[in-house]
């Protein structure tokens, strides 16, 4: 167990090293004075650009800057952003709760929708219910998140409001601590947007994996022993079928925690995704690098958690 975690940590360091390097390379390829000029202000002369370069640390060589960044990371600091010279750590700690609220709420919804439909489809293959489940899944699978979000806004905000039913607020975010009710209302549409597409993925995932499991010999043996169909499906089948779901869940949570770009953009939620999009638009390198680092860390950490959960779900898997 400890070895798994250690190995993952080594892997994390390797990944972080490679991707921060790539981030830096992407931004530094071409003219290194570009960046300084962008932040020197309007109509900046050569002197102002030089000042900006010094202020942002751009006057040093590529490797020096990269090294400087890495040592900062080791001390837990992402540094200052280019635009406003604000500590990135505080920007992130402001944005993260938004993204976390969005993602974790959506996870609950998509599991609550996806898993039951998937189980229903798999236990009644080729039935009307299965077809309905499959249709649901394929429809939302083919629905890009932003399309769903935009259509939700159109129907559930504009049309409802015009009909005199202003149930849902337009956009924006209210903190859980300031008003739990508003927090909930503001997040319903974003949650559904994110969750419905994901629920489709999970429906298919669990249907496929449960069908496979139910075809196994040991399930037939359990039935032959005289166990009821219910017991066999829920105690033996579903448990084994959850393995791929856990993997996918780890990946999805890890990826989304670093920013649900599209959903945040559509609903104007000031989360990490928005922060990243703005930073990219402004060529604010340290902020982009910070979010890239966060994203990769989330993914690797979630993978480690998945490995551990595996061992609990499936005793055959040894944490070697």
């Amino acid at each position, binding site marked *: 167990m400890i070895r798994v975690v250690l190995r993952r940590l080594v892997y994390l360091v*390797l990944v972080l090293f490679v991707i921060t390097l790539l981030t830096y390379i*992407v*931004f530094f390829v071409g003219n290194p004075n570009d960046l300084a000029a962008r932040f020197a202000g309007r109509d900046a002369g050569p002197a102002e650009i030089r000042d900006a370069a010094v202020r942002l640390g751009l006057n040093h060589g590529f490797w020096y800057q990269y090294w400087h960044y890495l040592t900062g990371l080791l001390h837990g600091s992402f540094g200052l952003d280019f635009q406003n010279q604000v500590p990135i750590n505080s920007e992130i700690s402001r944005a993260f709760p938004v993204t976390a609220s969005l993602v974790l709420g959506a996870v609950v919804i998509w599991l609550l929708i996806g898993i039951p439909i998937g189980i229903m489809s798999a236990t009644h293959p080729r039935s009307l219910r299965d077809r309905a489940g499959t249709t649901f899944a394929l429809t939302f699978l083919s629905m890009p998140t932003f*399309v769903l979000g935009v259509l939700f806004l159109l129907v559930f905000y504009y049309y409802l409001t*015009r009909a005199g039913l202003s149930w849902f607020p337009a956009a924006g975010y209210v903190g859980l601590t300031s008003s739990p009710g508003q927090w909930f209302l503001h997040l319903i549409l974003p949650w559904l947007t994110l969750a419905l597409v994901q629920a489709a*993925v999970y429906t298919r995932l669990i*249907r*496929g994996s449960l069908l496979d499991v139910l075809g196994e010999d040991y399930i037939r043996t359990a039935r032959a022993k005289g166990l009821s169909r219910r017991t066999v499906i829920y105690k033996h089948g579903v448990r084994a079928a959850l393995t791929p779901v856990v993997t996918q869940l780890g*990946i999805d949570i890890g990826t989304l925690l670093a920013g649900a770009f599209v959903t945040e953009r559509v609903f104007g939620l000031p989360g990490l995704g928005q922060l990243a999009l703005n930073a990219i638009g402004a060529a604010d390198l340290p902020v982009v690098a910070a979010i890239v680092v966060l*994203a990769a860390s989330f993914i690797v950490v979630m993978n480690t958690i998945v490995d551990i959960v595996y061992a609990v779900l499936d005793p055959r898997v040894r944490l070697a």
Partner: protein
Amino acid sequence: MSQGGLIGVDVEQERAEEKDPELLAKGIEQEFVGRTPWRLAWLRLRKDKVAMVSLGFIVFLVLVAIFAPLLTALIGHGPNTQYTTSGLSLSGIPVGPGHNGFILGTDDQGRDVLSRIIYGTQISLEVGVGATGLALVIGTVIGLLAGYYGGWVDSVLGRFMDILLSFPILLFAIAIVARFGPSLELLIIVIAMFSWPYIGRLVRGQVIGLREREFVEAARALGASDLRIMVIEIAPNLIALAIIYATLLIPVNIVLEATLSFLGLGIQPPTASWGNMISEAQTGDLYTVAWWFLVFPCVALVLTTLAFNLFGDGLRDALDPRQGRGHLGAKAKVKRGARLLVGKLDEGEAQS
């Protein structure tokens, strides 16, 4: 992956194995009329109505893309022309579907929505097919090398794919496009860069199974070189897999292009792409009264993705009958943030 898995290798299960008892009694092997694997797959596919309808729609899309200039000329409205008098009402509201000769109405700048959708088809297919093709080539070559040689080659290439897959893909794609300025070519390259590892992992798993097969051993006994074995013995067995996953990757890449365009980082206006049409529609408020110029591009995008997904599904059933029933999970693998899952499953299988 265990023995082969995908791939029509298992088509032989379907050989018509009826033998004439009389001939058998004489000890004579009966002439045995079989069909080629591809022909069998096509026969199976043809029975799948949903897949055939999807295929029809895909062919239709391709034709629309190819004949876009002709079609828009027939309609009589260019994709970027602003019909400020016939296309907008006096108060500046877009004209609805079917009015003034605008079959799907106009957008907030008085442009013909249908013409723009037709040109958007071109972009979507170019990016979707182009990026997928590129990803297919890179993924197949790398997966083939990793799977065939194993050992340290596999370790290095496998790790490389893992790391690429641990990337926050969308974020990185956005960063690259933002840095170098959006263009069609860059879009294709960036999307391919991040989608090839899916193919790479699948091919690798497949090759590991194929490598142990007796026909590879037979080729080795013959003295065939590694290159010859990879190209002549193994690669033909990857074609089915490649076709299936390419079909499933195309809609993913089309959505990726639309998403990037929606975020303002893909195809730049005024060139029409479904993504930027939706984005442009959403930036104003006019779409709340004139739904059509938001909804129709959405419909085009969803129908296209759906068609590719359904066809890919049918194709998998046809080319790989054994995996037939439980196949729904595999779609999800490629569909969304898929990636590691594929590898995870491989490892899991190797362990148990």
